[in-house]
């Protein structure tokens, strides 16, 4: 940067910074942000809307219930409450990942409430709404039904999944 006469370098820098901040604030004010929970399932990263996830639980012992489909591994006891568990891997076409213990994300959307088995939590972040891209058409069939958007996080494309769609798929 050329040093212009009469202004101190520090003044220039200061101006730049203020400009940025302002822009950022505008951006910050203007942008609507939404919380997403980024998790890993199998080899890929997926995300849920934060509003859909009530809490994230460490691995619980899942009690198997007979006469349930494969994607419902059973029940968990969360602080006295009995919750179902969905194995989302079945819907995403992912293989079982056996690094450490899986976590259970409690998903709540309207009448639908269930735990969802995930491998690990990567992050819980706010992202601008505009950064959610529409889903790629080249996704494999299983995931495509659930994906409602694409987010970029940590250099990867993360598929944003819709709980509602998941709920629709599971109807007993």
């Amino acid at each position, binding site marked *: 940067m050329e040093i212009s006469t009469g202004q101190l370098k520090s003044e220039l820098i200061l101006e730049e910074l203020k400009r940025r901040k302002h822009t950022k604030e505008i951006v910050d004010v203007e942008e609507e942000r939404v919380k997403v929970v980024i998790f890993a399932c199998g080899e890929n990263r997926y995300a849920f809307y*934060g509003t859909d996830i*009530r*809490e*994230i639980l460490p691995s619980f012992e899942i009690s198997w219930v007979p006469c349930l489909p494969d994607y419902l591994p059973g029940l968990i006891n969360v602080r006295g409450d009995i919750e179902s568990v969905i194995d989302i891997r079945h819907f995403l076409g992912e293989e079982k990942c056996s690094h450490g213990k899986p*976590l259970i994300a409690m998903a709540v959307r309207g009448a639908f409430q269930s735990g969802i088995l995930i491998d690990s939590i990567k992050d*819980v972040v706010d992202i601008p709404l505009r950064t959610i891209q529409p889903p790629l058409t080249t996704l494999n069939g299983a995931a495509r039904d659930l994906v409602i958007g694409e987010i970029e996080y940590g250099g990867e494309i993360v598929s944003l999944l819709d709980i509602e769609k998941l709920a629709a798929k599971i109807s007993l």
Partner: protein
Amino acid sequence: MKICDPAIWLMHRLTYSRKMLVAGFFFCIPILLLAYFLVTNIREQVEFAAKERAGVRYVTPLRNVLSSLLDQRRESVLGEKSLSSGKVLGELDRIDARLGGELATGEFVRTFKARLGEIPNLHGVSARKIFDAHTAGVNDLLDLVVLVADNSNLTLDPDIDSYYLMDTLTTKLPPLADALARIDLIASRLMSNSSSVGDRTDLIVLAGQVRTLVDAADKNIRVACAKNPALSRILQKPFQEMDASVAAFLKETTSYSVAKSPLGPLPQNVMSKDANVAGEAVFKAVDIILPALDGLLAERIHTFRTRMCLYMSLSFLAFVLGVYLNIGCFLSVREGIASIRDVATRVANGDLTAEASELSRDELGEMALIFNVMTENLRAIIITLSGVTEKVYSFAGQLSASVDQQAGFSSQLSSSVTEISTTMEEFSSTASQIANHSHGVVDIAERTLQGTKDGAAGVETLAMKMSDISSDNEASLREIMALGRKSKEITRIMEIIGTIANQTKLIAFNAALEAASAGEAGKRFGVVAVEIRRLADSVVESTSQTEGKITEIMDAVNRLVITSEKGSNGIREGLDYSGQTMEMLCNVVDGAAETSESAKQISLSTQQQQIASSQVVFALRDIQEGTRSSSESIRQINGISKELMVMSGDLKALMGRFSLDVVSHI
């Protein structure tokens, strides 16, 4: 037989044809001679018979002469007119002219004729004298007849029938006729009473003679007829008549003679008639006998001639047949000989396929057979020999080849032996080197011994020091392990911290979610959640760092432990090794002693080796000698085998001279 040798010698010098000719010739001669003699014999017999016939023919006129002469005498005595005897004499002359020479009657006939000629000249003599003259003539005639019979071989007639006929004819009937005539004369004299005493005696005598003659004649005739029955037909009747008439006449005259007194004059005609009848009967008998005899003789001659012809023809046939067969024999033999000779010649020239024809069954045929067998055998032999020769030839070739090989081997052996010799010399020198070195080894062994002892002392010191190190090492090890354990505890604590951190992170996430749902009020709570999250992250990070450090420490500890253990192990091993080294040093000491000993042994052995190697060198020289002589032998063998090859080649050529059957020739 020795006797035959000259004959054999002669025969050997002749060819077969000549032999046959000679033999045949000498066989023909006797045959011819025999034939000749046979013919001559028969001819003699024929001539004999012919002469007899001549005699018989001569007798015919003599009979007439006798008859005439008797008549003449009677007539002369009785004073009757005598007939001329000229005709009969003429006959006699004729006959004599013809046969007189043959029968040698010329002289006698002349005498007889002379005597007869005198008779007519007798005139005026007594009747007695006339009677005697005539009787002399008659006797001459009778003698002539006998002479003729003698000279014409009639008296030698071989056949009984003709002999007795002849005898009757010549010696019985004529005298009988004469006797009858004389009896007649005497009887007539008696009748006329002009008889003398002697007449009666003469009569009796003559009668006796007549009877004798008649009996003899009858006996002769009987014998002849017995011999030849055909004669009886002819002769029986006349002789019976004769007998009868003569008997009658005799009876008459006899009765007259015995009469004491004169009986009275008989009619002279009757007596004469009877005398005539008797005489005629006699002459009839003679006439019968003559042709009969002649017939017999003629028959005999005919028989002889026939026989001779038969004999001649038979002998001729036999001769011809004999000649024919002989020729056949000659030819057959000659053929046989020629065949064998041909075949022999061919075989001699080498053609072994020649076969003699085995036509004849005699010894020549056998010879041909044997010859063929011989040829066959010879052929077989030659074939075998050919084969063998071939083999010999090839073997000789092989032998030659192998001998050449042998020669090669021999020279190789020679060179190998030389090499070995050289090697042995080297060996010898090497052995002495070894001997020298072994002395050096002894020195070294002793020095080793000393060094070893020093080494042993050093090792002991080393061992002590090592055990010190060992115990120090163990102490360090224990401390390090304690350190390790402590590190593990730290790790455990770290894990707990990590877990707490993770849980904290989770809580932070949940807090964030709660904050989100809490809306505006939750924003600051959200910030707090973020802070908590950050804290948790930093804890996790530092935990991980600490973990890292702990891990490093643990690694280092492990490494130390390992090293320590290694060191421990190493020390233990070192102790072991030092122990082993001690052992080894002891072994070395022993070894050195052994080495010393062995070196001495080596020295000894080396000396022995030297001896052995020089022996070997000698042996090798012997081998070389042997090889040289072997080479020599091989050369000889080679020469011989080559000669053998040549010889077998000659033999082969020799075999080739023989031509055998195509099939059987190898």
